[in-house]
């Protein structure tokens, strides 16, 4: 098993919470993991990415080679496109459709989503809306993880366990909200893949 994921978003959107849950699930599954993050200047509202690599064999490079990513998991639609050079021909683009507009020249959303829909394998989900429906607008990142979960070769229960472990400090209510967000995202992806 090998799964290379480019996590994408804007500094401050908290893409690392997704990586933390998957990391926990990978460790529990005895998988090897490498995860390169963006720290420093770009965290101030700039484009950020994290390269997450999972495998049952040792992983060498912290960076994903061009054209080899299995998934681009983006919490922002324009950012999902930035990393297409990394995506393999068989890979999936899984993106939130709610834009994060903090630049004056943000392109027209229709054009952005049009490019996403050109991708042969894509899941475009309004994670902010789904998260609100579940009852916590802050859980959109877990909706996104749920939407990507059908394409990650880790038992879904382990991803759920990952959420339990990461959020346990914040109390059971928060854990359950995030679990629901995860399941809602997965349900959407399975219906729309």
């Amino acid at each position, binding site marked *: 098993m090998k799964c290379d994921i480019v996590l994408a978003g804007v500094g401050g959107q908290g893409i690392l919470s997704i990586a933390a849950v998957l990391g926990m699930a990978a460790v529990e599954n005895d998988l090897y*993991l490498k995860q390169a993050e963006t720290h420093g200047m770009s965290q101030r509202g700039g484009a950020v990415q994290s390269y997450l690599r999972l495998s049952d064999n040792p992983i060498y490079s912290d960076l994903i080679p061009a054209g080899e990513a299995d998934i681009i998991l983006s919490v922002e639609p324009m950012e999902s496109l930035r990393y297409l050079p990394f995506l393999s021909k068989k890979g999936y683009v899984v993106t939130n459709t709610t834009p994060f507009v903090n630049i004056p020249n943000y392109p027209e959303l229709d054009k952005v989503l049009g490019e996403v829909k050109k991708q042969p394998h894509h899941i475009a989900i309004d994670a902010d809306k789904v998260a609100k429906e579940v009852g916590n607008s802050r859980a959109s990142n877990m909706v996104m993880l749920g939407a990507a979960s059908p394409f990650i070769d880790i038992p879904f229960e382990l991803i759920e366990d990952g959420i339990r472990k990461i959020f346990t400090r914040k109390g059971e209510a928060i854990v359950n909200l995030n679990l629901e967000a995860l399941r809602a995202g997965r349900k959407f992806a399975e219906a729309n893949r």
Partner: protein
Amino acid sequence: MTKKLLLGAEAIGQGAIDGGMSGVYAYPGTPSTEITEYVQENTVAKERNIHREWSANEKTAMEAGLGMSYAGKRAMVCMKHVGLNVAADAFVNSAITGVNGGLIVTVADDPSMHSSQNEQDSRFYGKFSMLPILEPSNQQEAYEMARTGFELSEKLGVPVLLRITTRLAHSRAGVETVEPMPENTGSLPKDPRQFVLLPAIARKRYAGLLEKQDSFRESAEKASFNQYFDGEDKSLGIICCGITYNYLKENYPEECPYPHVKLSQYPLPEDMLKKLEEQVDEILVLEEGYPLVEEMLSGFFCRGRRILGRLDGTLPRMGELNPDHVANALGIKVKKGEKAPEVIANRPPALCKGCSHHDTYKALNLVMEPFGDGHVFSDIGCYTLGALPPYSSINSCVDMGASITMAKGAADAGLFPSVAVIGDSTFTHSGMTGLLDAVNEKTPITVLICDNESVSMTGGQDSAALGKIESICLGLGVDPDHLHTIEAHPKNHDKLVELLDREVNYEGVSVIVPRRECIQKAARRIRAEKMKSEQNA
């Protein structure tokens, strides 16, 4: 043995604790910050009361680390690559004094300049100072090197430079850790004059350092971090420094057909490299940063074996390497993903919504408008983002503290008004001495010390300047009539404009302190307070 998921930087923090460290000394700087933060939060470090407070700058950190070594205990000093420029005086001379307790100087370089103003390669400092260098290839090795580096330092009698780059510092992987060693009990140096670098003593000690070079080489020759791997195809030999070894293995996960050397401890293991050289037609050098090894092997006239790398164009001359660069250099076909569509706009970093620097720059731009562009010198910190639209307020960003001194020099050259914009922590890092120069000469400059009570760009560490800025300025001799503090807030816009207008036109030193807590730090503080009150309820 336990397995932890750690960033490379965190692995170094854990390794240092497990290696019996008594103190970490550092100034925050990407990508090195997380080493010290890890130690600050670590339970064992708290129980043992390992020193883990931030220092005012990299030089004070380096000297304090050397002092702890003098007293016989193990210390680590951490900084980003440009921080080593600040600490260089102490660092280079620490090679002459040598150590008593083990001393590791960990420097995190930032090739590709993700968060830096240059991509200098700290291995040159190591070579220049004639010190051993450790350069881990992965997180586990980073842990091992930090853990065993103190012993190596004590055995060789000198500080050891531990060099990492951004990619390793900020990438997470499973790390196996072992039980922590006890700390040293502490002891004075056997030779009471070891640290007294009077010329007569320094000459002897320098001769000693030169003599020790063979033992450093021998140590690198025997080090398990350095390895020789044979290969069938002798048309090429490969030298992989630090993390570039991973990029080779990424391309040859099973077996590399070429003889190759994994190089993670310097000075160069000559015998190992000679063995490679004897076997192969050409040598490819993979190194992150500057072509240090490549240059050494090429020689001035390039008459020997053909050496391939960054200098001859086989690899890019600048920027960090990746598996695709290495594949290209080896003639391996690189897969290509789709091109990114043209609709994508750049998304540069920007000041946070609600940040106090917005208020400062809005007012400053108004006041400076009549004078035209080119009067504002700035510094290293979040406020450097004032260089970008919509403000485009500042005309310089060079090194820590350079705003005040460059404004002074420009004022000496006749530029009026001449304005410096510096942050609170940058001011206590390296701004104070420059302000003293200006005060002593009554140079007509206006200094804005934007005090957000935090070292924010690196994640909101405590600022050494907290609560001290006014008294420092007064102590340096700033005229109290021209020292003003104001809350940087939209409600104070008119007041700030009026104040700036008056002081910018004053022909002497004036200091204005626009102050409001970093918005990120405030948000974190409020969240933590809320969580605490909920837990107590």
